[in-house]
């Protein structure tokens, strides 16, 4: 089995209205339940907005701590899932369902070493 990180990228700004968000969260919960039942779920997490991030970088003696996020941009990592799958096709099947639930957000899928 291989492990895959599914990163959810979302545009910066206020979250959607509760009426929009609630059914999405419900669908996410049932997708995670289905993954657990199939033995594919490893972990998942949603993140606070990028303004809450702090960035650290060591350089010799110095340790620089700055207000984040690390990258400038209009979209940031909003949450992630780690799943395990036999191969990329199996992982893509789960990722496709995640992308459908989170339309129109982009999902990046990367193999874990």
């Amino acid at each position, binding site marked *: 089995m*291989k492990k*895959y990180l599914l990163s959810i990228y979302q545009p910066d700004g206020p979250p959607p209205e509760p009426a929009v968000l609630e059914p999405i969260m419900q669908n996410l919960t049932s997708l995670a339940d289905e993954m657990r039942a199939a033995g594919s779920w490893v972990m998942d997490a949603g993140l606070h907005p990028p303004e809450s991030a702090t960035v650290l970088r060591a350089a010799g003696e110095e340790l620089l701590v700055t207000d984040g996020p690390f990258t400038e941009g209009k979209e940031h990592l909003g949450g992630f899932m780690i799943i395990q*799958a*036999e*191969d*990329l*096709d199996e*992982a*893509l*099947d789960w990722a496709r369902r995640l992308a459908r639930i989170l339309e129109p957000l982009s999902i990046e899928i*990367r*193999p874990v070493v």
Partner: protein
Amino acid sequence: MPVSAADIAGVFRAEHGRAVAVLARVFGDLDIAEDAVQEAFAAALEKWVEGLPPSPAGWIITTARNRAIDRLRREASREDKHAQAALLHAQDEPVEEGVVRDDRLRLIFTCCHPALALNVRVALTLRLLGGLTTSEIAHAFLVPEATMAQRLVRAKAKIRTAGIPYRVPYEADLPERVRGVLVVVYLIFNEGYAASSGDELIRSELCLEAIRLGRLLVSLMPDEPEAVGLLALMLLQESRRPARVGADGALIPLPQQDRSLWDRDLVAEGHELVRRCLRRGAPGPYQLQAAINAVHSEAASASDTAWDQIVQLYDHLLALTPTPIVALNRAVAVAEVDGPLAALTLVDDLDLGNYYLFHAIRADLLTRLHRFPEAVAAYDAAITLTTNTTEQAFLTHQRARLT
């Protein structure tokens, strides 16, 4: 009978896809498979000079497998985890040729996986299935050999690390994945067919390779009418190759081609395939394009063409793939049935201002309507938008007749 190095290279080229496909299954790794076939080639250059073995494919696969196992054993004894895994994999896998058909199908789907960029899929398919060398592929796509080599190395690394599987896709994914494979094969054909600058030999080689891949797909997926449609389409286009470039290297458009130069065998085979797939009653874009080409092939001259049939086929194609390019091609046929003014009205509605053929077709229609100043302007736009020197020469010649 003595065998030359060129003959040996030819046999390896023809058997490359089959051998890599079997060995990729045996070792679970494309790199090992490819290297092993390369080693077998070096061995064949020594052993085959006296004469070809009874089954060259079997010889290549067995030799490649044995040499790879020897090498992997040496590496595995030095605690190389990758080599140990490949050896373990090889123990459980039979090498008999009965499963060869499936192996090649698996390899096609791996090379054409949607997680790989389109230009990467094209390069991998030509290298692993077609057996073209990295240098030949680089030459065909006008990129430096080092760039192409790097593209192939990265592609194989992604297949390995991302876990792109070496198998036929799930039933539910199959239609989309088959379409993805057909796109790659037709792209290879078009790259060869486009009369752009560059080595004509390599370009016609690409067309032949695409046709070879098309035949392979039809033999592996006989129930896939679009695969048959694509093969028919490529054969019918290829049949006109001898007529489409004049002695001076200038492009000759379909209506002016000397139809006696068309390859009658390819036309006959293309027609037979069109009939065979349309009988199945599941027409798709490739089958319809093939059918359109078949109507052209049946006509003794441009004016004898059953243009009304062609318009009907384009109506069908436009319903399946409603793109402005299809609408533009349909308008060309409409000009022959309803006249240039009707066609021009259709063309002017299309949002294709950046496409040279849009302007070239407008220019032709305007010429036929005797609206010469507008036609000249349209030719100018077309000439600016194409980088293809053969096309430029053709358009400049057309424009010169008006001034």
